[in-house]
């Protein structure tokens, strides 16, 4: 879906020959989020700062001794405070995807904040877990790691091409407790009360990844956000219905748009019997969910969701809600 050619960004997108040397932030984007932030200048500044890379050591095939072995090779690693096997790579001699250790599946290149949804879902080894939008598999493999390769994860993605990457990544990491499915996420609503836990890392407008992909906002528009919001509402209802009573649903996006975050959670709370649980994550700076956006009020529980702005932890932008289905 294309919006009107209203920004400089589209012009650049239409001229791929001219490389984008800096992320272009559309005026409407600035107007939308500037209002929410007392530190908006810092926000814009961080949006333009390249993202530091991070890895997650794969505990299915390695142990934390890998840190020392990589440092002996000249790498410099720094602990991600909220994930015991997550590390920022401050110095390295090689491309992260082109090392023997990567070939052996000893680590996965994964953004530090994207390690949070599996940690907050907290699956147990024997459980049946659904990952609605699993590809390319960073979070699925982390779920498998937390479950010690036991229980069962249904790892779904509707796209054939993305499934190929998912399969390759899970295999490389030694994951053996998954069933890969190719379904429209909305179909899971038919499997009533089936799963112990569900992760919905929803397709989103991905505003939060601008530091990694500088043209992330190239086809950004409010219409696109609204279209994704409608899809996310259908997906969260299906995810909610597939969950057992008492079970946990984690909803996450890598975007700032309240239409794709708080509005989706508010919609769920109005349609189904859920409560929002406030995540406690040591070492992470986060801000509460919004209870109002452009004249729309959200249920007060929504403030227990967490917003992670790029300037708070020097990461991507992220949104996470931990929800429990009432018995």
């Amino acid at each position: 879906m294309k919006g009107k050619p209203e920004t400089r960004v589209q012009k650049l997108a239409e001229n791929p020959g001219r490389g984008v040397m800096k992320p272009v932030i559309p005026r409407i984007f600035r107007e939308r989020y500037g209002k929410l932030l007392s530190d908006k200048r810092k926000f814009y500044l961080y949006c333009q700062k390249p993202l530091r890379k991070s890895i997650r050591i794969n505990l299915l095939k390695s142990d934390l001794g890998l840190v020392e072995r990589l440092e002996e090779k000249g790498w410099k690693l720094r602990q991600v405070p909220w994930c015991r096997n997550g590390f920022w790579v401050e110095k390295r001699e090689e491309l992260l995807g082109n090392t023997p250790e990567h070939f052996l599946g000893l680590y996965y290149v994964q953004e530090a904040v994207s390690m949070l949804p599996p940690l907050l879902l907290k699956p147990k080894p024997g459980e049946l877990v659904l990952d609605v939008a699993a590809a390319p598999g960073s979070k699925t493999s982390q779920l498998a790691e937390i479950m010690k390769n036991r229980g069962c994860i249904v790892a779904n993605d509707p796209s054939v091409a993305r499934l190929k990457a998912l399969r390759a990544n899970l295999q490389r990491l030694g994951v053996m407790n998954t069933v890969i499915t190719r379904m429209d996420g909305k179909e899971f609503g038919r499997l009533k009360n089936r799963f112990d836990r569900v992760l919905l890392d929803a397709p989103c407008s991905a505003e939060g990844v601008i530091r990694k992909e500088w043209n992330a906002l190239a086809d950004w528009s409010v219409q696109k956000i609204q279209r994704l919001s409608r899809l996310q509402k259908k997906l969260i209802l299906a995810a909610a219905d597939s969950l057992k009573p008492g079970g946990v649903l984690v909803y996450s996006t890598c975007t700032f748009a309240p239409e794709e975050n708080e509005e989706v959670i508010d919609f769920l709370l109005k349609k189904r019997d859920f409560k929002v649980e406030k995540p406690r994550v040591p070492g992470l700076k986060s801000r509460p969910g919004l209870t109002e956006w452009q004249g729309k009020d959200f249920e007060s529980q929504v403030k227990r969701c967490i917003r992670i702005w790029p300037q708070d932890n020097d990461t991507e932008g992220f949104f996470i809600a931990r929800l429990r289905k009432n018995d």
Partner: protein
Amino acid sequence: MIEEYFRKRFGIPKNIFSRYWILEKKKRYWIASEDVKRADLRGLRIEVIGMLLARKNREIKPTTDAVQVFGRFAKKNRIELDEKQFHDLLRGLDIQVKAKAEDGYVILFFKQAPVAVGLYRQGRIKNVIPKARRLKL
């Protein structure tokens, strides 16, 4: 039976696989955690269960990913590589070795850890690492 193949070719005891669920479909063998077998999978459109363990054409070929997990139980047809040989392997090159093995697929080790499958024939290991996984070193 694929467990019998791993026992005969590599000396991997059959009971190593007893805690897993092995499926055979269209000349491919898949291996999954035992719990997956007990899970309620009704109504799902399944593409893949577990990890690809081996393919069967004229002969059986274990996958790189599977030997990285199960290769450590091998007692024969395993060859230890030195650092240069390991790097050559990752780059997609064939390797000359002094070690002896029976002709056919062998499990390659580096610093005592299983790293990949190779095709051994008379002192030479043919590189069978998928092109997409080779490295530029």
